[in-house]
């Protein structure tokens, strides 16, 4: 029997909570003291939004093993749902009057509505798309993303109510998005996704990626879990959309082009499919780089392409592979240093050919 020591669960959660609070404290202090300028504060907010987009897309690509190409569509749904809702509430007046406390319930409600609306769209798209085998999901989600954008561009009122304002864009959205709110949302998103993935439901999602026929043979309802993962992915994209709307204060449909979906996908692929840490790092780094490349505009896509090609050559599994960092695991390794575990020899017949 192994003699390795394990860090008990409550302590693990404690360690992660302390680390998260420490990171927040450092960043908040740097912002308060002006070390992080207004400009870089904005970049931090964009990083946070992109991190949520990347880790949410990672559920569908990395964990579930599908290839959706319309993540920006769900972001758009969340952004518009949240934006329209916020405009209809007293949020703007409350924020102007500096009554932040009274604004909090509205902010929470806006984020929930944005997430849920995107989730409903995820359900509507996911149910037919995920029942089909092969590459249909990529094609259907790609179509969905474009349709959303085209609809938002061409429709400015629904049933006589001026809603989306078409190509001119939705303006005067209450600016709810601060560094603190984004940080909280990022932390909660990562926490929730982590909790789901380390439960029976997360295991079921991973089993589909690993081998769908085997998953079904042990009684796992793969359609249900595919749709569940896809909806979860859409919900968080919607939340990110709402934060985006509340950051810019105005929305135009052209922000949610196909290229935005690809940008998020590049973050996930570069970070390593199935690695939440990888998504976080890649989203952060790419956001900063694209900020620096702002002057060259859409030519930065060339840079992304180059980065992808280099990655495929040198690290085909992405920056982190499927590895997920865990502070507790690192500590355990230090505690158990010297007590090597026996490692079994590698499989003789690597990948069995699939012919059944």
């Amino acid at each position, binding site marked *: *029997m*192994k003699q390795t020591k394990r860090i008990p669960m409550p302590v693990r959660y404690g360690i992660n909570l302390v680390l998260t609070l420490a990171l927040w404290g450092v960043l908040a202090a740097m912002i308060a003291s002006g070390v992080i300028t207004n400009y870089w504060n904005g970049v931090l907010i964009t990083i946070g939004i992109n991190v949520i987009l990347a880790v949410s897309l990672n559920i569908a690509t990395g964990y579930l093993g599908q290839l959706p190409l319309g993540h920006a569509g769900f972001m758009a749904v969340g952004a518009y749902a949240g934006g329209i809702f916020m405009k209809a509430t007293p949020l703007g007046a409350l924020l102007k009057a500096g009554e932040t406390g009274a604004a909090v319930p509205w902010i929470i409600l806006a984020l929930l509505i944005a997430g849920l609306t995107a989730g409903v769209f995820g359900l509507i798209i996911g149910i037919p798309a995920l029942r089909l085998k092969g590459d249909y999901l990529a094609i259907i989600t790609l179509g969905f993303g474009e349709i959303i954008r085209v609809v938002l561009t061409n429709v400015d009122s629904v049933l006589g109510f001026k809603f989306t304002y078409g190509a001119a864009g939705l303006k005067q959205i209450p600016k709810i998005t601060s560094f603190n709110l984004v940080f909280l949302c990022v932390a909660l998103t990562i926490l*929730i996704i982590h*909790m*789901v993935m380390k*439960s*029976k*439901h*997360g*295991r*079921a999602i*991973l*089993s589909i990626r*690993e*081998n769908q*026929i*085997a*998953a*079904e*043979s*042990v*009684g*796992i*309802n*793969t359609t249900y879990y595919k749709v*569940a993962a896809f909806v979860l992915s859409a919900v968080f994209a919607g939340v990110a959309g709402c934060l985006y709307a509340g950051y810019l204060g105005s929305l135009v449909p052209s922000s949610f082009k196909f290229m935005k979906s690809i940008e998020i996908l590049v973050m996930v692929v570069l970070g390593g499919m199935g690695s939440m840490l990888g998504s976080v790092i890649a989203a952060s780094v790419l956001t900063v780089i694209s900020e620096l490349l702002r002057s060259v505009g859409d030519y930065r896509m060339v840079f992304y392409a180059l980065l992808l090609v280099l990655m495929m050559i040198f690290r085909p599994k992405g920056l982190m592979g*499927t590895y997920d960092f865990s502070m507790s695991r690192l500590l355990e390794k230090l505690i158990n240093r010297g007590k090597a*575990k*026996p*490692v*079994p*020899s*590698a*499989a*003789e*017949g690597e990948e*069995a*050919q*699939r*012919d*059944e």
Partner: protein
Amino acid sequence: MNEKKTFQRGRLVPLPTNAFIPERDLEKTPILEASHLGIDFGGLTAVDDFNLTIGRTEIAGLIGPNGAGKTTVFNLLTKVYQPTRGMVMIDGYDTAGMNTVQVNKLGVARTFQNIRLFNALSVEDNVKLGMHNAIKYNMAAGVLRLPVYWKQERIAHERALELLSIFDMQDLADVPAGSLPYGAQRRLEIVRALATNPSLLLLDEPAAGMNPSETYELMENIVKIRDTFHIAVMLIEHDMSLVMGICEGICVLNFGKVIAKGTAEDIQSNPVVIEAYLGKKKEG
């Protein structure tokens, strides 16, 4: 080598339907009754008019040359393919229109000829996935880490180790399944199937790639599994020492058709079988 005991095999007795099952299972509903089962792939008839009844605690064998349609029979029983013709009753229930998941919930679990493990996941998680439907908490309870989550996961953890210990694999619980040696992967597939708490365990070439002593150990374990879990086992195997050693009823398939059925003794002395199969493929 250690002395090898011979395994006790039950006496086969006829049912009114002309099928044979072990005498001890007579009082109970057969776990499997397949009648006139068949499937066509385009113009090719892979399996035709397949009839088989398996008793509640029987160890049954399905043999035949390569390409005879054995794996296809498993795929029909587990609804990986929907049959073109015929009927499958599991535990007395007609499975018409059911899918793989529903058939598993009725009590059919299987392994695969080409191993299908969840390679990147740990050995323990592979087994826990077999227990997926027995682990009871919803997504909200999981995310909020309510007490029911901890309790259910602890029970699952202990049960997984217990099942792994059948094959003495409990120390490998944290290893990724894909990094196990070939033989251990086959054993893990059996454990994962058992974790679904089946009444009928289908094993597709469980001894493939194993040496004689591993194969003998596997035979002992299959009998042990049947005796501890009181389940039926149906296995496809090319290793005749295994099939003749533990299988009670044996069914021989050739070109998608059943050419013989009976006990090991019946099969070994059947001239049709010898010509179609044993004559050509006799091996040690």
